[in-house]
C-alpha cells in the first residue's frame, strides 16, 4: 500500500480500524480529539460503533462491557481523562480483559496545559489505579510507529488479556507524516471462549474482579503476576542507536524526546564524539537488561524526558553499578531543541554536569 500523509491522531484512528477494531467509546479532550472526530466519520463507513460517552469514567466502563462481550475495543484520551479512567483500568486489569488505551499526554498536574509532556510515565507504568497490576505500555516516536503500535497493542491485549496503553504526546498527535497501513498479515483476533455472550448450552461465563476468599484473590494476583513475568521475558522492545559501542555518554530517552536527541547525537558524532542512545519502546516492560548492558559500556548516562524526572528512576535501578546518571528535563509544554540536548551532553562529556545522587542536595550542602 502506498504511503499517505496523515496527522498522527487520524492515523491512530485508522490503525485501529486496520487492526479490526469496530468499537470506539470516548470523551473529547485536547490534544487528541481528532481521533474521535476522525472515527465519528470513519466508523459508520465500516459498520463500526462510534459512541461519545458522557465522561471518561463512562467511556472506559463501556470498553469493559464491550471487551467482556468479546469484541476489540479502544478509546483515546489525554492525561486528565486517563486519571478518570484509572478506576476502571484497575477493574479491567483485575478482570483480565483486552482493552487498548491511547494516551496523548499533556502537561500536568491538574488541568496543567495542552502542550506535549511525558509526565504521566509513573501513572502509566507504576499504577494509576489501585491494586497489583500493570498496563503494557508502548511509546511511539513517529506517526508510523504510532500506527504500528496501535495495531500491535490489539494483538498484545488479546494475547495477555490485559489492558495495553499506547502513550504518545501532543507532537505525535498533531504532526503530519507519511504513513502506511499493513493490509496483509493482520491476524484475526484469537477465539474468546471466556466472553460473556450468552451461555447457549455451556456453563456460565463470569467477568469479575471480586474475590472475597483470600486464597482466591491471591490466586488471581499470582495469575496476573505470571502474565507480567511473561511480558518481561517476551515483550521487551527497545531501539539501540550506537548503544552497542563503547560510549562516553549514553542517552536514554523515549518517544518524541528520543527523536530530538537523535539529531543532537548525530551532530556530536559528526564531531567524532562517542555518543549512543538507548530508546525504550516498551515502557512497561522496561528494557532493564539492555540498559544495564549499554550503560556498562558507557562512562556516563544522560536521561532526557519531558518531565522533572520519572523514567530516570527506572534507568537508575537498571544501570550498571558505578556509572553516573545525569538528567535533563523540560516541562510545561516547553520542548528542548536539539542544541539544548547537545549542550547537556557536552556538559556531561566535559565533567561540568552534576550527576543525580542519593544524598539530598540540601544535606550535602550543610
Amino acid at each position, binding site marked *: 500500500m502506498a504511503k499517505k500523509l496523515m496527522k498522527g491522531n487520524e492515523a491512530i484512528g485508522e490503525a485501529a480500524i486496520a487492526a479490526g477494531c469496530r468499537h470506539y467509546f470516548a470523551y473529547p479532550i485536547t490534544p487528541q480529539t481528532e481521533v474521535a472526530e476522525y472515527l465519528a466519520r470513519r466508523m459508520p463507513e465500516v459498520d463500526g460503533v462510534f459512541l461519545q460517552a458522557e465522561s471518561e469514567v463512562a467511556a472506559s466502563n463501556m470498553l469493559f462491557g464491550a471487551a467482556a462481550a468479546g469484541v476489540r475495543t479502544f478509546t483515546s484520551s489525554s492525561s486528565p481523562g486517563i486519571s478518570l479512567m484509572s478506576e476502571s483500568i484497575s477493574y479491567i486489569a483485575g478482570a483480565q480483559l483486552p482493552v487498548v488505551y491511547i494516551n496523548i499526554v499533556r502537561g500536568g498536574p491538574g488541568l496543567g496545559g495542552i502542550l506535549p509532556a511525558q509526565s504521566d510515565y509513573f501513572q502509566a507504568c507504576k499504577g494509576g489505579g489501585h491494586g497489583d497490576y500493570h498496563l503494557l505500555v508502548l511509546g511511539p516516536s513517529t506517526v508510523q510507529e504510532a500506527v504500528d503500535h496501535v495495531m500491535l497493542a490489539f494483538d498484545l491485549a488479546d494475547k495477555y488479556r490485559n489492558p495495553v496503553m499506547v502513550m504518545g504526546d501532543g507532537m505525535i498527535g498533531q504532526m503530519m507524516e507519511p504513513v502506511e497501513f499493513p493490509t496483509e498479515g493482520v491476524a484475526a483476533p484469537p477465539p474468546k471462549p471466556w466472553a460473556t455472550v450468552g451461555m447457549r448450552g455451556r456453563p*456460565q461465563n463470569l467477568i469479575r474482579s471480586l474475590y472475597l476468599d483470600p486464597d482466591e484473590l491471591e490466586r488471581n494476583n499470582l495469575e496476573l503476576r505470571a502474565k507480567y513475568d511473561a511480558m518481561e521475558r517476551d515483550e521487551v522492545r527497545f531501539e539501540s542507536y550506537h548503544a552497542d559501542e563503547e560510549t562516553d555518554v549514553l542517552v536514554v530517552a523515549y518517544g518524541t524526546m528520543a527523536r530530538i536527541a537523535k539529531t543532537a547525537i548525530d551532530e556530536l558524532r559528526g564531531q567524532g564524539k562517542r555518543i549512543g542512545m538507548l530508546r525504550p519502546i516498551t515502557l512497561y516492560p522496561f528494557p532493564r537488561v539492555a540498559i544495564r548492558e549499554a550503560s556498562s559500556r558507557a562512562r556516563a548516562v544522560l536521561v532526557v524526558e519531558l518531565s522533572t524526572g520519572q523514567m530516570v528512576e527506572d534507568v537508575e535501578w537498571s544501570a550498571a553499578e558505578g556509572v553516573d546518571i545525569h538528567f535533563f528535563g523540560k516541562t510545561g509544554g516547553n520542548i528542548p531543541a536539539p542544541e539544548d540536548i547537545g549542550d547537556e551532553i557536552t556538559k556531561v562529556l566535559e565533567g561540568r554536569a552534576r550527576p543525580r545522587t542519593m544524598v539530598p542536595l540540601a544535606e550535602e550542602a550543610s
Partner: protein
Amino acid sequence: MTAATIFQRPQSLTERITHYCPGCTHGVIHRLVAESLDELGLRESTVGIAPVGCAVLAYHYFACDFQEAPHGRAPALATGAKRARPDLTVFTYQGDGDLASIGTAELIHAANRGEKFTIIFVNNAIYGMTGGQMAPTTMPGQVTSTSPAGRDVDQVGYPLRVAELVATLRTPSYVERVSVHSPGHIIDAKRAIRQAFAYQKEGRCFSLVEVLSTCPTNWGLTPLASLKWVEENMLPYYPLGLKKSPEDEV
C-alpha cells in the same frame, strides 16, 4: 392419580443458597427476573451486570452470563455490551446507593441515549452492604448510621425519585415503579419486569423498573414489620405505577 409439577425453580436461577439476610426481598426480585427470562426464552442469550452492593454476588444465583461492574458503572458496561452485541439480552441489577448516588450520571445518560437494555433498580432506602448508611433514597427523618438523628432534609435534601426523574427524559423508554411487599404487589411487579424484558426483546427501548424493597437488618425491623414499613412510609412518597411508556407521544 398421577403427580404433576405445579411449581418449580425457574431455569434462570441456580440452586445456590443466597447470602441475603432473612426477610430481605432481593430473593423475590431475583425470582421475578428469572421467571421473566424463562418465559420469554431469553436465558441463553442473556448477560447480567452486577452492581457493587448487596447484589454484587447476584451472578451466583442467576444461571446466565454475568459481568461485575465497578460501583455505579453498570449502565456503562451494559451500553458497551449491548452496542457490541445487540443480539444479547442485557440487564443491570442495581441498588439505590449504586444507581441513585454514585452511578447517577451513567444512569441518566444511558436512559437519555435510549440504550436498549433493562435496569432492575432495587430501592430499599438505605445502603445495605456497608451496614445501613443514608442513601439518596432514605426517607425524611429515617435513622441510619450516617443520619443518627434522622435524615434532615434541610441539610441533605429530599429523597431522589428515580423513576420520575428518568421519566422526564424525552427519549422514548419504559419506566415503572412497583413494590414487592405483598403477594398482589409481587404479581404486579412480575408483570412490569416481564414487560421491560419484552420491550428489550423487541429492540424497542430503554427500560427501567424501580422495585421498592426491604432491608430488615439495617432498618432494625422484623421481616413482617419491614413489609408494613414499605406500605406506610415508602408508598406515599414513592407512588407506584407506570411513569413512561414507549407508546407515549414524544
